[in-house]
């Protein structure tokens, strides 16, 4: 979603250009099709879906499935809709994203500007966190949560996601701060700013692009996480993803496909929104540090 510039595009002939556009349109259609079908079917009465053609546009437009998915659909044993779980997700995502981003920034700051013996090894070990699959940490994490007495709660989930995300956020900030001029830190030291003052007053305010990267990355990952939510949450802390699963895979009653579609879109909306609002900074931030401006 970065802004394409025309200056560095290779100039091409008319036919090539037409071909490129054709391919782009084809691929765009291909990728948008599933979403289009979800939207179309979420505003149809169930009878139209059961009647046959999923591809057809709605004959009767209704927002009923959306309201139902949001507030009255049967999730597990309660007819609550996705609403409470949406709040659960938000209550989990915001602290988890904030804490992991700030800690990652702090780690990056220490690893680049307050170097100590063995810091590269430590950083290497932290990088491992990026390669560990979710499943491997399940059992140790369950033990830790039990030990801390926060199993089955939102704080527990926040802890899980902070721990799991720290490897990534540290990597981002470390690479970003690597090229941050050390003379600035020295100037601030002479000016009398201490460790945290330098961090809050000088490093963080200059970290806009990489904060955006970290926030988008963490937000998407944590919001979309299913495994940790399914494993470590109980009924009043289950995130949206788990609730959506419970809604869709309910084995009793009529399958309300239109409600399922609406629910799925609801679950995907926040990440979509984050990408639209901050996406342009994402590529920019990912590039920062890797390419010298």
């Amino acid at each position: 979603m970065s802004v394409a510039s025309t200056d560095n595009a290779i100039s091409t002939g008319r036919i090539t250009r037409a071909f490129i556009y054709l391919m782009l349109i084809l691929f765009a259609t291909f990728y948008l099709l599933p979403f289009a079908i979800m939207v179309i079917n979420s505003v149809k009465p169930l009878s139209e879906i059961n009647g046959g053609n999923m591809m057809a546009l709605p004959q009767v437009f209704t927002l009923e499935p959306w309201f139902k998915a949001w507030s009255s659909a049967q999730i597990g044993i309660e007819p609550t809709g996705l609403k409470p779980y949406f709040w659960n997700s938000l209550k989990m995502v915001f602290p988890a994203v904030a804490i992991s981003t700030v800690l990652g920034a702090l780690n990056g700051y220490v690893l680049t500007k307050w170097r100590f013996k063995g810091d590269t090894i430590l950083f290497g070990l932290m990088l491992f966190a990026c390669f560990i699959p979710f499943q491997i940490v399940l059992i140790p994490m369950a033990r830790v949560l039990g030990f801390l007495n926060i199993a089955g709660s939102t704080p527990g989930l926040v802890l899980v996601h902070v721990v799991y995300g720290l490897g990534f956020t540290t990597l981002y900030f470390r690479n970003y701060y690597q090229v941050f001029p050390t003379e600035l830190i020295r100037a601030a030291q002479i000016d009398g700013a201490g460790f945290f003052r330098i961090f809050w007053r000088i490093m963080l305010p200059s970290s806009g692009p990489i904060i955006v990267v970290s926030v988008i990355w963490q937000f998407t990952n944590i919001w979309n996480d299913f495994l940790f939510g399914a494993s470590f949450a109980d009924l009043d802390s289950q995130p949206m993803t788990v609730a959506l699963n419970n809604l869709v895979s309910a084995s009793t009653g009529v399958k309300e496909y239109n409600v399922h579609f609406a629910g799925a879109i609801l679950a995907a909306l926040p990440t979509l929104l984050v990408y639209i609002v901050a996406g342009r900074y994402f590529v920019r931030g990912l590039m920062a540090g890797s390419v010298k401006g």
Partner: protein
Amino acid sequence: MSFLKINNATKSYGSTEVLHNIDIDVQEGEFLVLVGPSGCGKSTLLNMIAGLEDITSGTISIKGQAMNGVHPSKRNIAMVFQSYALYPNMTVGQNITFGLEMHGIAKPEREKAMAQVAEMLQIKPLLNRKPGQLSGGQRQRVAMGRALVRDPDVFLFDEPLSNLDAKLRVDMRTEIKKLHQKLGTTIVYVTHDQIEAMTLSTRIAVMNGGYVQQLGTPKEIYDSPANLFVASFMGSPSMNLVPAKVVANGDGIFAQLPTGLSDKVNLKFSNPTEALKGFDQKEIVLGIRPEAITDPDGADQKANHVEQIMNRVIVTEPAGSDTYVMSSLGGKDCNARMRADAQVVAGQDVPFAINMDKAIPFDPFSELRIA
């Protein structure tokens, strides 16, 4: 008692010693320049004074107080960095007052100090801008403003002019010198540019390989370099260093060397020292600055002894204000600085006048000046 005293200071990284037993005393109001090629340890020494690098052994004291282990902000110093190190997220005004704010000075006083400094450096219109919107010269001023506003005991400058273009560099050089004359503060200034060192300083410490090669006034450094390194490093174009043999006879003491025309020319020393007499029949390196070799009309009339020789011109380089004339002396290229309108043509044999008052003999083995 000296104001800033560096006493037997060394710096090691692991087992590698990069600065060896540095002793420098700086008096209040002095402008000391640390000059040397890159990697000579001058910036490390400056950082040690600032407290950004710790001192491995020895002491550094300011106003009689040992600074070992004292935090940079508690040393009452201010530093101007090569990259200016302006905080990119703050306005010029905030940049200047950040240090005062960190030291808990109340806002009205900060504003007053800022206004004063802005007035002095003529950066008032810039106060609300961000560093990114400033030109190199303006950033330089702001960086100096940030140092000035603290009213420190010692100013530290780390190659502050090396990021500016040539013309601006000369302007800012003058500006810094004016500032020093006006404020009379103690300054330690690091540069690799020997012209900056000569023009700005009251004293120069020439450094190389982690040692102070020579510490003295610009005139001492230029006229009586302690060794071959100082001789060749200071001065542009650099000093001619030609191998010669000392010959003593009843008429005096001579440096004997071949030129491009004859294989033996005797140059008589104006006032030979006793030490030089001891080098009779031995090899030396004779150092003669380009400006001490001229055309006969341009020779210094006040010199005690000017030696005139014929030599062949290899190349001439007219530089506008002067003409540099290359010839061969002692088997080496020898640069002479003649008047701009001296009539010399490449390939011709012309007379050269050598001011022997300015000729300096060096011992080729110890590389020290024979004095």
